[in-house]
C-alpha cells in the first residue's frame, strides 16, 4: 500500500486538465450543433421542427452513459473504433446539443412576437430579423441558463471514466486502487470539481442579476 502523497495530487490535477478539455469540447460541439437545432425548432417548416424536436426528445430520454457505451463500444464493434476522448467528446456533444438546443429555443421564443412584427413592418427579411433583432435579445436571456448548463457538463464528463478515459474521476479511482484511501481521495476529487464548477455557478448568478436590471 502506497501512502497518499503530493505526486498523487499532481496526478489528479493533471487529470483535471482532461476534464476541462473534455468539457470545452462538449460545450463547443454542443453549441455548434445546438444553435442550428434551436433554429430548426422554431422554423416555419413543420418537418424541420419535427426532426429537431425528435432528436432532442430522443437524446433527452437517453442516459448519457448509454450514449457513451454506444459511441465507444457500439461504434467499435461496427468497425469504427474511436479513441476514448473522441468517443466521449462525441457523446457529450450530442448530449449537450440537445439540451442547449432546447434552452436556446426557449430564449428565442421569449422574444416578444411584436419584435418580429415591428421588424417585419420595417422590411427586414427573416434572416435579418434573426441576426439583428431577435438573436441579440435571445443572447441576453440565454447567458444565465447556458452557464448553468456548463456546470452540468463539467460534472457529467466524469461518466467518461467508464470507457477508460482518464479524466478526474477515473484518475481518482486509479489513485484509490494503489492507496486505498477512498474517503480522502474522493473528497479531494470532489473538491477539484467544486473549484471548477463554483465559479461558473457564481457567474451564472451574477449574469442573471445583470440581465434582470432594467427589464
Amino acid at each position, binding site marked *: 500500500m502506497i501512502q497518499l502523497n503530493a505526486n498523487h495530487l499532481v496526478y489528479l490535477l493533471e487529470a483535471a486538465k482532461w476534464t476541462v478539455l473534455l468539457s470545452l469540447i462538449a460545450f463547443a460541439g454542443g453549441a455548434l450543433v445546438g444553435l442550428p437545432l434551436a433554429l430548426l425548432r422554431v422554423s416555419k417548416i413543420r418537418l424541420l421542427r419535427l426532426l429537431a424536436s425528435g432528436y432532442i426528445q430522443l437524446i433527452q430520454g437517453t442516459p448519457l452513459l448509454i450514449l457513451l457505451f454506444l459511441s465507444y463500444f457500439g461504434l467499435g464493434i461496427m468497425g469504427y473504433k474511436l479513441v476514448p476522448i473522441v468517443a466521449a467528446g462525441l457523446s457529450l456533444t450530442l448530449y449537450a446539443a440537445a439540451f442547449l438546443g432546447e434552452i436556446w429555443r426557449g430564449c428565442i421564443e421569449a422574444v416578444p412576437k411584436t419584435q418580429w412584427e*415591428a421588424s417585419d*413592418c420595417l422590411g427586414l427579411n427573416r434572416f435579418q430579423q434573426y441576426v439583428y433583432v431577435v438573436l441579440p435579445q435571445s443572447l441576453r436571456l440565454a447567458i444565465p441558463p447556458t452557464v448553468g448548463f456548463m456546470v452540468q457538463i463539467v460534472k457529467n464528463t466524469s461518466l467518461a471514466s467508464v470507457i477508460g478515459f482518464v479524466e478526474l474521476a477515473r484518475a481518482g479511482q486509479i489513485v484509490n486502487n494503489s492507496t486505498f484511501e477512498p474517503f480522502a481521495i474522493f473528497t479531494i476529487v470532489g473538491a477539484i470539481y467544486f473549484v471548477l464548477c463554483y465559479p461558473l455557478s457564481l457567474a451564472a448568478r451574477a449574469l442573471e442579476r445583470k440581465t434582470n436590471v432594467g427589464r
Partner: protein
Amino acid sequence: MSADKGSDDAIVRISDVIKEFGALRVLDGVGFDVARGQTVAIVGRSGSGKSTLLRCIAGLETVQGGTIEVCGHEVGRPGSAARAQLRRDVGMVFQSYNLFPHLTVERNITLALTLVKKQSRDAARAQAAEVLRLVGLTDKIDSYPEQLSGGQQQRVAIARSLALSPQVMLFDEVTSALDPELTAEVLAVMEDLARRGMTMITVTHEMGFARRVADLVVFMHKGKVWEIGPAAELLAKPRTPEFTQFVGSEL
C-alpha cells in the same frame, strides 16, 4: 355599408374585406377608400375589428375575402410579391412602441435604412438625425429605449417609421398606453405630420384628435363600417344609435 368615395387619387382602396379567426368573423365586408394626403380616424369599441383592419392593411394579417390595395399593390394575400413593395410604402406604429431594446435610438432608426434601403451608414445617420428633429428628440439619439418615457419611445417609433419615407402611415392606438400629458406630445407629432400632407390611417380612442385632425372618420361596429364621413359632420350628427351612444360615451 361600404361608403366608397371612389376618388381617382385613392392611395388605399379597401373593398369587401372579410377576415375570420376560426369561426369568428372579425371583418365582415369592410370597404372604403383613402385619398392621398388624407387623415383617417377609425374609431369604435373594443372588438369592433378596427385594429384587425389596420393590421390587414399593414400586411400583418391575411384576409379571407375582398381586396386591399395600397399604392397600387394588392396586399393581404399570403406570400404575395407585393409584400416587399408594401413594406416600402407603408409605415406602421404600434400601441406598444416595439422599439428594439438592445439598440440605441439612432440604430433603431438606421437599421432598416442600411439593411433594407441599402443606404450607407453616414446617409442613414443623417436621415436619423433629420427624423428625430421632426419628432423633437434630437438629444436622445444615443439613448436606449428603456431610458426614455413612453411618449418619447412612441415618438422614436414614429421617427423610425418616417425615416423609410413611407407614403402611408398606420397608427394602431398609439397613445393608448400613455398618460394624458405624454399622449398630447405624441398627438402633436401626428398633427404635424398630417399638416405636412402625410396620408395617415389611425385607429384611435382620441375623439378630440379625430375631430381636430381627421378628414374622414370611420366608425366600426360588429366588423362593419357602420358610419363613415367627414369628421366635423359625422361627429356633430351621428346617424345611427350605436354611433350616437359611442360618441356620447367617449366625451
